[in-house]
């Protein structure tokens, strides 16, 4: 498999996790691509405009990328913090509409700011890695970190509070969970992750423009989660990886590939309404995995 495609898959998985975080708290937010675009602009502007970040022009130093990621995450997080308060008073479909509006507002601002390069965007972004394999290793580490944090969340009070809000917000509030605060944390964490992902993506794609954060992208990232499953973090990761790869893997079928891709997206939720990854399926996989070594007679048993 090509490393460039693998990198896009990993970026897709990170974005899917960003959509998953508010969903874990029962909040349907489509704002991820907006924060992703903001993060990308931070990295693009810094690495093309500030000599310390630009390196030699063609290659940029790795520490610069890390600083860009921190700044991109911080800016996206701050925007989320500022607007999260009023926006998160909305629920369900109204919240979704508000976040779509947010994505549109950010897009139009990005198109019209004097320093973001208009529709052409910013191009010639220096590369911290000479080969796509470098990006893959780096993004894989980032994804592993994000997955580990999501996993930790399951055991933390915050994670349990989020799950409680998802299952019944009123009941959660009754047992003393600070629901607005918890929802805000989930929203900010989602923005932060999207911003950091954008910073990596801007370098990888060479160029960055407002189309990175469009309504289409909102729907695509939502599809990752719906397809993969929204209950457990491996769901969005799997959805992000698969749905990013599929249009490319289908290239051999020629003109039919986008039709097939559409059919897969349609059939996925029809046959797996909870998404591909559910607790029951993971359990079954686990039992199967546990059976296999015993059959082979591997010396695992004490």
């Amino acid at each position, binding site marked *: 498999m090509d490393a460039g495609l693998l990198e896009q898959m990993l970026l897709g998985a990170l974005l899917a996790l960003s959509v998953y975080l508010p969903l874990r708290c029962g909040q349907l937010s489509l704002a991820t691509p907006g924060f992703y675009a903001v993060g990308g602009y931070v990295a693009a502007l810094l690495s093309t405009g500030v000599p310390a970040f630009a390196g030699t022009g063609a290659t940029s130093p790795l520490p610069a990328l890390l600083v860009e990621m921190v700044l991109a995450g911080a800016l996206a997080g701050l925007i989320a913090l500022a607007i999260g308060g009023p926006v998160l008073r909305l629920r369900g479909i109204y919240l979704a509409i508000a976040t779509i509006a947010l994505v549109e507002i950010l897009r139009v601002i990005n198109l019209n700011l004097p320093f973001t390069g208009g529709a052409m965007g910013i*191009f010639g972004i220096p590369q911290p890695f000479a080969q796509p394999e470098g990006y893959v290793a780096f993004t894989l580490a980032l994804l592993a970190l994000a997955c580990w944090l999501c996993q930790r969340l399951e055991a933390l009070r915050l994670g349990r509070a989020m799950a409680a809000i998802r299952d019944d917000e009123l009941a959660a509030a009754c047992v003393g969970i600070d629901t607005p605060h918890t929802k805000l944390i989930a929203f900010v964490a989602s923005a932060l992750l999207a911003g950091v992902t954008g910073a990596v993506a801007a370098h990888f*794609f060479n160029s960055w423009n407002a189309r990175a954060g469009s309504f289409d992208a909102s729907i695509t990232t939502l599809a990752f989660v719906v397809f993969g499953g929204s209950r457990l973090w491996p769901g969005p990761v799997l959805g992000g990886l698969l749905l990013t790869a599929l249009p490319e893997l289908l290239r051999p079928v020629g003109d039919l590939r986008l039709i097939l891709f559409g059919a897969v997206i349609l059939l996925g939720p029809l046959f797996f309404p909870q998404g591909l990854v559910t607790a029951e399926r*993971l359990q079954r996989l686990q039992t199967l995995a546990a059976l296999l070594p015993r059959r082979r007679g591997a010396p695992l048993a004490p």
Partner: protein
Amino acid sequence: MIPGRLHRAGTGLLALALLLAGCGGDGGKQPINLAGGVPVGAVLALTGNANVYGQDQKIGLELALKQRNGVGGINGRPLKLALEDSGSDEPGANAAFTLQINNGMLALIGPTLSQQAFSADPIAQRRGVPVVAPSNTATGIPEIGSFISRVSAQSSVIAPLAIEAALKLQPGLKRAAVFYAQDDAYSTAETTIFQQTLKGRGLDPVTVQRTQLNDQDFQNQISAALREQPDLIVLSLQAVDGGNLIRQLRELGYRGLIVAGNGMNTPNIYPICQKYCDGVLIGQAYSPELDTPANNAFLKAFRAAKGGATPPQLTAQAYTALQVVAEALVRLDKRLPLAGANLVEARKALMAEILSGSYATPLGEIRFTPEGEVIQSQFYVARVRMDPGGRSGRFALLK
């Protein structure tokens, strides 16, 4: 219980991704794979909102391929063209470029849109693969790098001609209105040139209206523009949105002249604006009336394939792009036989060969600057003439 299981599942997933990552990478020192012919790749927008251009370009490439293989290919070895769809966005173009480069293509033709070129061309540049762009007109494309060239003259050369032609048709023009798609690289680049030209001729635009690439309904912008009572409307829009806008413009009662940019320079606008396309002025880098052996051969091939129709500029430019690559390959193969040559070095030598040559093409005699910008001598202006039924029409050149 569940967390532990999750953990293991996640570790497995990441291990799988790592494993896949290990499969990446391409050997830089491989020879050229000449099985089935000399490999050249094309990346066109065959789906998405730019597909109307990709369809025109595909025909041009197919005709050029047939022509080249009819006269002996690359010194007796057939030319092999691999066509990939880029969609109409940047990630699609990036993926298609990478795929073609990994498949060992000697040179790439594409991508269709300037916006895609800014994203995908640096990939080819980094990996040292020659790119000949058949339709990128935005400023700054050959400047992306030493491996990037184009046969499509940039809009700063062509766009002013259409304004001049409009002023010649109606010397008293005073009130120009400008439309452009603010989220499209081509539109914003071209409208700057249109507006400079207008100002240079003392025609300060009375209004500049911004639209979006994916808009369908332009009533607001049109009403705002018509309040200013313009007598000339200048559009920098792509085929689909531009066609819709012209239709709505005429339906809302505008009767004056319309100048359109290169984005509408395709007969595929006929089904969109139908009878309302009539009279639109568009600058041209190609004339079907050019009487040279190269153009006559192209015309004959096109008419044989498409039943008597007139080839659009995009088709002629795509034909030219493949012709340029093929002729450079023929010369290169004589100097440095492709069989047994190292792929990396052959790509580098091919780029130098492309830039150093002079080509008799349907566009006329063309050459390249050392940066890869095309040098072309003749440009034209066409006026769209629709048939009475409004189903079909032609681009009639202004004399």
